[in-house]
């Protein structure tokens, strides 16, 4: 393989890898505060991306993205407050089923609003034929946008959890909900906040990939599967591991087209998911006592 091609694959792998990582982190944030997998995570990505496309018709791109992220965050908050907040000690299964129901409803609403048309946000800089040359490989500037923005999101989230008051409170809730309440932390608000955060980063991810992958009402489904695989691969609840897992999956997928038909690309994540669940249910980086310790 030529070096240009090699870097071409790496760049593509990193692009998808970071998106998977962001979706996985979205899963993790909600998992850490509630113990559930939010199957509507992919729908946040879709909502963010579709809303931004619609808004972009009326306003400049940065504003459209900002607004669509905010709107998706509000949707996340409303979703939590309507369907989860008032439940008295609900079981994990019940909550997961609610998220599955919500994902279907959101998709149907999106279909009603936007139809089946495939749309896309414009390239943030240049257009589809613009490229920058890195190590001889021709890479779309949008790839750099995806990698850049996603890295910033990852770092910003880590700072949020480490250094801000609400970030620490969320970690406390994840570590021990009852003890957190005894410290005066409103655990219910932290759950709402976790939905808001997950929705926000999902929406942002949806906006940055839209020019490359295009957007459609059902784009969230494959992303949710990949993100879920990555979350499991890294060990549920562990965000830095999710980044590593995301990049691994992205790069594997990207190089796979070199050795097998690209139609099989999507099978890789399912295969990894099954292998991990069979052999290392705590994830690649998971501890032995696996899900006992949750850390963002």
């Amino acid at each position: 393989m030529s070096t240009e091609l090699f870097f071409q694959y790496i760049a593509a792998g990193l692009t998808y890898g970071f998106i998977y990582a962001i979706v996985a982190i979205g899963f993790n944030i909600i998992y850490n505060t509630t113990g559930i997998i939010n199957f509507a995570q992919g729908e946040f990505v879709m909502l963010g991306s579709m809303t931004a496309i619609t808004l972009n018709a009326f306003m400049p791109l940065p504003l459209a993205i900002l607004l669509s992220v905010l709107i998706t965050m509000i949707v996340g908050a409303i979703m939590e407050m309507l369907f989860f907040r008032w439940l008295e000690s609900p079981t994990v299964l019940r909550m997961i089923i609610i998220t599955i129901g919500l994902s279907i409803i959101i998709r149907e609403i999106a279909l009603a609003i936007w139809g089946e048309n495939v749309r896309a946000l414009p390239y943030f800089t240049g257009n589809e034929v613009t490229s920058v040359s890195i190590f001889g490989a021709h890479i779309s500037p949008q790839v750099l946008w995806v990698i850049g923005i996603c890295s910033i999101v990852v770092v910003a989230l880590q700072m949020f959890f480490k250094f801000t008051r609400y970030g620490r409170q969320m970690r406390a809730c994840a570590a021990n909900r009852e003890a957190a309440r005894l410290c005066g932390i409103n655990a219910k608000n932290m759950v709402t906040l976790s939905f808001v955060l997950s929705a926000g980063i999902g929406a942002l991810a949806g906006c940055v990939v839209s020019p490359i992958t295009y957007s459609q009402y059902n784009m969230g489904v494959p992303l949710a599967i990949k993100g879920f695989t990555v979350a499991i691969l890294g060990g549920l609840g562990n965000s830095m591991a999710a980044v590593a897992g995301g990049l691994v999956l992205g790069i594997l997928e990207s190089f796979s087209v070199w050795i097998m038909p690209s139609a099989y690309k999507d099978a890789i994540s399912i295969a990894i998911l099954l292998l991990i669940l069979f052999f290392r249910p705590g994830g690649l980086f998971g501890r032995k006592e696996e899900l006992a310790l949750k850390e963002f």
Partner: protein
Amino acid sequence: MLRIRNIEAGYGSIRVLRKVSLHVNPGEIVTIIGANGAGKTTLLKAVSGLLKTTSGEIRFKGNDITNIPAERLVSLGCVLVPEGRQVFSTMTVKENLMLGATVRYRRDGKETIEKDLERIYNLFPRLAERQGQLAGTLSGGEQQMLAIGRALMSGAELIMMDEPSMGLAPVIVKEIFKTISELRNEGKTVLLVEQNARAALSISDRGYVIETGRIVLQGPAEDLLENRDVQRAYLGRDLDAEVEL
């Protein structure tokens, strides 16, 4: 300061507490003793708002706090050090302590809280040495100190403790009990639940004995220590394991 009247509470259809009444006056150390499963933890959970009561009334400093959400009670000045320490194991010692002060950020501001942090470090120098260590990697005794320190950071006047000596070596137990009596000198009020009955009663003003969800005996701590039934049921066994103060 705390007045509990005829409360009943339980889990699902299981009733655990049956018409429990007790009170704690300002500046007192009050101990509740009772066998395993008597309902001591259930009682503290009901008071702290972690568990709903089905009847009865709880008042704290004159306010009705029956079934108040746990996170609100702390800001009123009543805090629980839960059974089994329950530190935030994935967070550092310092983070744990600062989280204890959650309710005070708006009220007191950062400087007062930092000053209090120093006080806690003076009280438990071992925590000061381990500020940056993850709480989950502390020894049992250190975790208990952290749990107490975290509760004290809330600035609460009434500290409820659920078996702070559980599973700890006698030397550490002694240290913990010494700290508890020091708290009284600082003007705090303590409601203590203990299996280590002799040591607990010897630092207490008054005590209650709880059996299968009912208060069966109460009185000044000295009287309980001399009471024949109490001696037989709670003080007699494994005297060697008890800590002489």
